[in-house]
Structures are given as C-alpha cells and as structure tokens.
C-alpha cells in the first residue's frame, strides 16, 4: 500500500509525542481503541483555565502509520484552539488532510474520538466533578 507524503512525514517525524501528568487538573486525557483491534490512541490536552485555550497537546499511539499520522496531526491542530473549537474537528478533515484511503478511515475516526475523550476528561475535571 502506498502512503501519502503527509502520512509518511508524520510517521517519520511525529509531532508532540509524549505524556502529561494525568493528575494535573489542566490536563485532559483521552484513550481510545483496543490492542486487539490493532490501535490504541492516547491524546492529551493542556488547557489554560482562564482563556480556555489548548496551550499544548501530546499523543502516543499504538497502531498503523495512518493511525500515528492521524493523532500526530490532531495534536498540531489542537494547539491554540479553544476547547469548543477543538470539538469541531471532524474525522473527515483528517481524512482530507492526510489523503487517507477508505480502509484507513477508522484511524481518523479514532483520532476524532480521542479528541472528544480528552476534552470530556478536561471538562469533567475543571467542573470539579
């Protein structure tokens, strides 16, 4: 299978790899997927509590090249966005940006799920729940 230039670029130079402290109240963590399915994404956002802007994002992904690229791209897009803007990111945006073939669309869906899960986690924490 041929990979798009952008997928290869993210695979070879993944952006924002790493982890934040899950216990930090300004950090939201989303972990989606399952090892049995061949992909697990962990995506974290660090939000400025006064402005609501995502100041930093990090990821770690177990999965194929397209899954790695989707989550790497997601962290790039998340930085500088407000929490609400982040929720507007759609998997189809990722598909278009990375030119993912049909068999890899689930990777983009997973990335969208990871964004939502991370933001949810942050919101729960910041509302003091």
């Amino acid at each position, binding site marked *: 299978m041929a990979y798009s230039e952008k997928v290869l670029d993210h695979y070879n130079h993944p952006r924002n790899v790493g982890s934040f402290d899950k216990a930090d109240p300004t950090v939201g963590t989303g972990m989606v997927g399952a*090892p*049995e*399915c*061949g*992909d697990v994404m962990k995506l974290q956002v660090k939000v400025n509590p006064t402005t609501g802007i995502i100041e930093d994002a990090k990821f770690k992904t*177990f*999965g194929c*090249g397209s*899954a790695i690229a989707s989550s790497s791209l997601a962290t790039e897009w998340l930085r500088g966005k407000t929490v609400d803007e982040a929720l507007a990111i759609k998997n189809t945006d990722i598909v278009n940006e990375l030119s993912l073939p049909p068999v890899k669309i689930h990777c983009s869906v*997973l990335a969208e799920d990871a964004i939502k899960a991370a933001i949810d986690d942050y919101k729960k924490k910041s509302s003091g729940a």
Partner: protein
Amino acid sequence: MKFPIYMDYHATTPMDPRVFEAMRPYFTEIFGNAASRNHSFGWQAEDATEKARKQIASLIGATAKEIVFTSGATESNNLAIKGVFQMYAEKGNHIITAATEHKATLDTCKHLEKEGARITYLPLQTNGLIDFEQLRAAITDKTILISIMYANNEIGVLQPIAEIGKLAKERGVLFHSDATQAVGKVPVNVLTDNIDLLSISAHKMYGPKGVGALYVRRKGPRVQLTAQIDGGGHERGMRSGTLNVPGIVGLGEACAIAQKEMPEESKRMAYLRDKLKDRLLAALDEVYINGTMEHRLPNNLNISFAFVEGESLLMGINDIAVSSGSACTSATLEPSYVLKALGAGDDIAHSSIRFGLGRFNTEEEVDYVAAKVIDVVNKLRELSPLYEMHKEGIDLSKVQWTAH
C-alpha cells in the same frame, strides 16, 4: 548491499539462475508437446519431463511414476483432498486436518463440507504442533484422509509427520501432507514418513511460478484419485492438460540443486536465522517467538514485538521485504489465523513479523536487518501508549478498552 533486502522467502523465492539456464531451451528450441508420440519434438519434451520426474522423486524418496505435475501446490492440495474424497466416498466422508493449514487446504475442506464431507479441524498446541493424542482420538471408521502440512508457512513449525504417517497407515487412513514449505529445505521422505500424497511447489524452492507436483503413492497402498480437470487424460488420467515443459524442467532442476546443497544450505540458514533471533532478543525486551524453535524450518523466524503494531513496523523497515500477521497488512482486517490458533492474543498477532530467509541472503543483510528492526521497534515503543503503561506496571489485560 542491494535494497530493498528480500527476506520473505516463504512467500516466494527468486529463481536460481541455474534453474533458469536449465529451462531456457524449452521455450524456443525444444518446444514440443510431451504428449506428441509421433516425432522427435514430442520425444524430446517427454524426455525432459521424465528427467524432471526422476529428479523430484529422488528428492522425496518416491519413484518417477508417482509424480503428477500440476500448476502449483494449491492445485495439488485441491486434487489430493477433493480427489480422495470423491474416489473413496463409499469408504467414508471424514477428513482430519488442522486449524493452521494453508487456505488451499482449509478452503478446499470447507468446499467439501457443502458436498457432505465431515471435517475435523484439529486445534494446535501453543507451540504450533498438533496434539498427537487428539489426532488419534479423531479417527473414526469413516475417516478417509488426514491432511496435515509438513511445515507451516507462517511459523515454520514442522509437524510430527513420521508419527502421523505411521498412525495413518496403522488405521488404514490415507495421509496427505502439504509440503510446500518443506521440500528442498528439510529432508522429506515419503517412504519413511508413510506419506500417501504430498504437495510440492516449484516457486518456493528457487524454481518457476505456476508449476508444482503431487506425489501419489502407487504401492502399499495404491492411491487413486478422482480427476479434477478433465481432458486428454495426461498424468495417468489424474490431471489433464498439456504439460508445462519448461516449468517442469525448472522444478526438476530446483529439486536436483536442493538435494545436492540442502545439508550445507540448511546449516547456513539456521546460522543466519539464529543470529537474527539472538540479536533481536538481546537488544529488545517483550519479544515473543511464535511457535517452537525446536521443530522448525531452518530459515523461518516469526516474532512478535509487543506494544508495536505490525504495519507501523513494516513502514519503518520499508527497505526490508518481510510479512506481518497484522490485520492492517491484509485485506481481511483479521489478524493471522495461524497465530490465533496458537492461542496468541490479537495484540500479539498484530505485532508479529515473519522473516523468511533464503539462498541469496547474506550475513551482512542479516546484520543490517537486525539493527534496523531494533531501531524502529525502539522508536515505535517511544510512541506506544501500551509500552508506557507496561513500564508503569499496568496489566494491559485488566484495562477496560473502548473496542471499536
């Protein structure tokens, strides 16, 4: 070194230049139909195919008349299994095979189930071997055939063929073995192994694609088959169709070379394979070898790098041609059924790489491959949330995953 490095010899092999040279005259100068009885063109072609028959027979301990030429091992498996099922219908309808057989066997059996066959698919032990007692217990008075492969194409595990052959003979059941991966790599002897039908492929042993053979025992017992391709009655009526003379010459030459060079070559393969294995195991933690190392082809290594997904690993080693059991590399979206049959979790199956070494690999290549794989696995583990969790002491089997 030339790139990409080919280390997928279980998929296919390049033709040995000596095989190519042997075949060359049979495309243009010596082009006769081996079935033409009235002129020298036909006689020459027939002489060539008879020589090949002897070369093949000699490698597997058979006689020339017991070799039936086919288009490859898939056809050989079809002919053996369907041919026995139809020919011996009066005796019974039960066939025993194993869950890790090649699809050419499994799908043939599935096909026969629709025609009234009862098939037992033996489960495998975690080391990749069949449980001999289970096989013994599975035989009934309706059993007409046991079909167990000699060496597995993914994990290279060698089944206890001689024991199975002995049991089959004692119980009066025919024994077919798909020896596609074994012939030319390890000693195969249909006499001492009590094999009644044996499938062979040329392109897995440095011969051409599109040609293979089926050994069909003629004595003790004389095995009969219902033909699957009707026509001119070639190959003693078992497989009609004009013989592929150049291909057959190639298969014969490939067998002759294998017979001569196997002792030396299998030692060299085992040395290179073990070097690769030892280097990977020394440099990386959480690495699992799939299938026993004890009963295994000398050129096979199937290994899982936990917490690293197979396709992403292949992407990182894209100057090396190998296979992965990961679903992401296949059209089916199911990880390797062979590894699953060994009881491996889907995560281990997703993380597996099959290395198949061969005649033209060098030690320099093995060193390069080992270093490259180690480097990419380390890089991907840096990226892997699973490896991070493992390092934190989290038991991944206890985590509630959001399956999708």
